[in-house]
């Protein structure tokens, strides 16, 4: 079964080719069958690969399949191949599983769109690129997928390109991602320079010997790779494209901009955990950026009225949690949250799509309300996913988010823990604000004009499946403190196991140099050893209790604000006018970027055009011509056309020459 993993990206590629080349002439049913079927086949192969991998002993759960030799130049060899290990196995299951559900949902959602076959071509192409990204056996193959998903993201955000704003949103996403990709490329160059290869397996094996733990090079590599991750995974300072990316069709937001593509950065750090563990400075940066993003985006989400914008900022915030997990060394917890987030956030986005569909393209929550009665399936699934993201046990979000916060605390990242903890209650608040404004209260639209209807089964069935996963998805990672076995950690241990060894290396290297900034490394190692310790257990229970209480508090505040006393939010906003405006306008980040980077770039371009090009370059070119011209017009006076004048010149020349030799040379 493992030999067949090449089929996982292959099926969506064939689907994209068939729909892309013949989709226009095919009936919609056939297009949908090809698109959904190809992803479903991939899912089946992925499940088969999972069980084959599980049958192997944990230490041998690495399978590399080389498809062909891609670049062979001298001693440099780059192969295009796939690497299946527990980490990529989780990723392909999430991508194909959630991807399949969203494909099915899209059939209903996009049924009336004239670009039906184009949409599914892009969606299949995306699945192909994403699976290439997670299965790639080297940084280069990963990068191919990385750029491929960026392209598909661009194509799908600007899917309705007749609308200039939507096309602009697509370009914004692409350009912001290119900034991050530049860092990623530099990181790759550094890796190639040090290792002479880009393949994951040898790099991760040789890293402790090739690189100095805690040294400048490994720090530079990891920070540059992280720059790429901030672009792709929408972290500060490159998160600005994700809220705009909501211009695309809602299932696209669910698949690309919530469940899969934006988690590529998290996956990439998980894949390079050995490198990151050797660079404590980078780890601190990753954790701090992640935690800051989690809180920052969460506060923006409080004030937004566009149902998709709230979810978009919520996604940015949740991605921040994942990076916090990566930064504090809890790689498995980060991947765990990635998976559970894929379930409940896909469910939320698809639910919002269902609402938008039922409300006839209305996205403003101020014109919704009371939809509970009209769309029961959407309501219930949305509510389940909301409880899951809010972190209420025993739903999925509780286990994954709490594990991240606990790891941050236990590994000594108290500041990052605090930011993440603060964001947790805010998450509960804004998500329930969304639910209460949309599904509860009075209808703030005219029911006679807007005929709200429940979505068809092709949309509600995926919703229910995802809602179910949002409930049970966390149970595979129940921590030991709650009597669980945390199977998810054990599953990922072969990939993430190297990290603790590298952390030891950092500790030793730093110890030799007498540095003190290694509290992190010692605590990381210590946390693993003392996981069962009594004092830690008490702290873990206490933190768990705190975060659940805090989440419930957030829900209660949302209830008071939007159900019990609906005029309260307006009063609070009026009282804190400045703060409200700041949050409502998203901290003016877009405006600042516009003023500094966009206007700055334009000013630079104007300078290059008006001065460098027009004055300097044109001046040199025209000056050369002018010089030749004026010298020529001066010299043409000698060309009289009079034969006798020429003869006189010859005579003078002859006299001078003869005179020179006769007078000067004879002495």
């Amino acid at each position, binding site marked *: 079964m493992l030999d067949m993993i090449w089929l996982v990206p292959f099926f969506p590629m064939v689907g994209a080719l068939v729909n892309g080349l013949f989709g226009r002439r095919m009936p919609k049913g056939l297009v949908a069958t090809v698109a959904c079927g190809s992803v479903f086949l991939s899912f089946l192969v992925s499940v088969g690969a999972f069980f084959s991998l599980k049958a192997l002993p944990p230490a041998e759960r690495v399978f590399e399949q080389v498809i062909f030799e891609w670049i062979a130049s001298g001693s440099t060899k780059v192969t295009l191949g796939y690497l299946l290990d527990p980490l990529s196995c989780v990723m392909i299951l999430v991508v194909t599983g959630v991807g399949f559900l969203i494909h099915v949902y899209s059939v209903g959602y996009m049924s009336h769109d004239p670009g039906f076959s184009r949409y599914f071509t892009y969606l299949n192409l995306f699945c192909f690129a994403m699976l290439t990204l997670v299965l790639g056996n080297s940084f280069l193959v990963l990068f191919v997928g990385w750029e491929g998903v960026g392209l598909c993201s661009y194509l799908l955000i600007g899917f309705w390109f007749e609308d200039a704003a939507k096309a602009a949103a697509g370009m914004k996403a692409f350009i912001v991602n290119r900034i991050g990709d530049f860092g990623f490329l530099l990181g790759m160059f550094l890796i190639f320079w040090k290792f002479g290869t880009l393949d994951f397996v040898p790099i991760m094996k040789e890293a402790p010997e090739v690189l100095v733990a805690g040294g400048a090079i490994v720090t530079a590599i990891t920070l540059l790779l992280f720059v790429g991750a901030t672009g792709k995974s929408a972290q500060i300072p490159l998160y600005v494209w994700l809220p705009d990316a909501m211009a695309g069709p809602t299932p696209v937001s669910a698949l690309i901009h919530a469940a899969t593509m934006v988690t590529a950065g998290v996956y990439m750090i998980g894949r390079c955990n050995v490198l990151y563990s050797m660079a404590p400075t980078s780890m601190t940066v990753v954790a701090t950026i992640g935690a800051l993003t989690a809180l920052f985006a969460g506060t923006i989400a409080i004030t937004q009225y566009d149902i998709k914008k709230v979810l978009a900022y919520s996604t940015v915030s949740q991605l921040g949690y994942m990076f916090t997990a990566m930064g504090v060394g809890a790689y498995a917890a980060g991947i765990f949250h990635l998976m559970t987030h894929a379930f409940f956030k896909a469910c939320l986005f698809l639910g919002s799509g269902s609402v938008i569909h039922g409300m006839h393209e209305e996205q403003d929550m101020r014109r919704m309300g009371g939809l509970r009665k009209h769309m029961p399936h959407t309501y219930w699934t949305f509510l389940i996913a909301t409880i899951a993201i809010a972190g209420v046990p025993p739903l999925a979000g509780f286990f994954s988010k709490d594990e991240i916060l606990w790891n941050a605390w236990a590994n000594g990242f108290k500041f990052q823990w605090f930011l993440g903890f603060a964001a947790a209650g805010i998450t509960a608040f804004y998500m329930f604000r969304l639910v209460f404004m949309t599904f509860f209260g009075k209808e703030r639209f005219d029911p006679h004009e807007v005929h709200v209807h429940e979505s068809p089964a092709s949309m509600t069935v995926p919703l229910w499946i995802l809602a179910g996963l949002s409930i049970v998805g966390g149970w595979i990672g129940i921590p030991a403190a709650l009597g669980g076995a945390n199977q998810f950690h054990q599953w990922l241990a072969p990939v993430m196991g190297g990290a603790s060894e590298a952390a030891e290396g950092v500790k030793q290297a730093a110890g030799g140099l007498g540095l003190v900034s290694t509290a992190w490394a010692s605590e990381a190692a210590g946390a693993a050893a003392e996981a069962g310790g009594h004092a830690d257990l008490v702290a873990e229970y206490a933190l768990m209790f705190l975060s659940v209480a805090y989440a419930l508090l957030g829900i209660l505040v949302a209830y008071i604000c939007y159900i019990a006393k609906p005029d309260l939010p307006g009063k609070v906003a009026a009282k804190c006018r400045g703060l409200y405006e700041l949050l409502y306008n998203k901290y003016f980040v877009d405006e600042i970027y516009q003023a500094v980077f966009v206007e700055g770039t334009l000013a630079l371009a104007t300078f290059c055009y008006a001065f460098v090009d027009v004055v300097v370059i044109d001046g040199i070119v025209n000056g050369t011509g002018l010089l030749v011209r004026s010298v020529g017009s001066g010299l043409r006076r*000698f060309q009289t*056309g009079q*034969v*006798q004048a020429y003869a006189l010149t010859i005579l003078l020349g002859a006299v001078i020459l003869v005179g020179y030799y006769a007078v000067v040379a004879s002495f």
Partner: protein
Amino acid sequence: MIPFEYSMGLSAVLFGLGVVGVLVRRNVIVLLMCVELMLNAVNLAFVTVADHLNSVEGLLYVFFVMTVAAAEAAVGLAIVVSLYRARRAVHADEISLLKG
């Protein structure tokens, strides 16, 4: 026997006359004649020096110069004839088509 200096002096005078004629006269035919004069002045110098040095090499050159002079006269006169046919002009200062 004419002294060496006399012959060389005559050659120089003839050459000078030719140069002045080329520079100052307007008629193209006269110009050609002056060129002939210069060539023959040089011939005279060659012969004189050959005699003075008791060598035949100078005499050899005289034959070359005479051949060239004949060819030059033929080509030059042909040009003058066709120039006169085309432009009705035989004055050097009237023919300045190559003026810059």
